[in-house]
């Protein structure tokens, strides 16, 4: 079980696409920094994966939550890291 940290915008970088290409259905995704622009992307709107977005990074950029993507804070971010076998950053 892996937590994937998406740290770049999917509109200018392949981080999200590369991650989704290899992701397992048991894995989770966390959108952070410019990765939160993924909320606006069709790749995230279609996904059935467990997905989170860092609330501070969303608010900073004027983004609001879409569909089933759960907003979390840094405390929950730390918890997620401790609950997964691996944490992989995509940038």
């Amino acid at each position, binding site marked *: *079980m892996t937590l994937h940290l998406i740290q770049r915008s999917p509109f200018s970088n392949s981080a999200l696409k590369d991650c989704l290409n290899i992701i397992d259905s048991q894995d989770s995704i966390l959108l952070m920094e410019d990765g939160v622009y993924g909320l606006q992307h069709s790749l995230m709107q279609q996904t059935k994966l467990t997905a989170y977005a860092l609330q501070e990074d969303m608010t900073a950029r004027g983004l609001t939550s879409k569909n089933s993507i759960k907003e979390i804070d840094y405390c929950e971010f730390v918890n997620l890291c401790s609950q997964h076998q691996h944490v992989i950053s995509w940038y």
Partner: protein
Amino acid sequence: MTHKILIIARSAPYGSSLAREGLDYVLTSAAYDQDICLLFLGDGIFQLLKGQQPKQINLKSQIGAMEILPLYDIEDLFVVEEDLIERNIDTKDLGMKVVSIKRAEVSQLINSQHKVLSF
């Protein structure tokens, strides 16, 4: 204890120093007797292309530096079939002996490791 460590190489060489700095970490880890395998994902594949001549742009060869990997007992170099096709690359175009796997097999590779790091 020896740990199984997977390094995911996602950066193309030269345009950024990440590919090089990632390889430096691979060589360090191998020197400390860890069980290292490498997965070249996405643009990371370009690190393996034959015929790189970066002298012309005043940089050190990435593929040249990778030739010493077998001396460090790093022999598991994985590439992803779909990434090769997407980039119009044949395994014959690669300067290292690689194992080609499918995208669907990558998570299994990740799950079989103690530690994973991506550059």
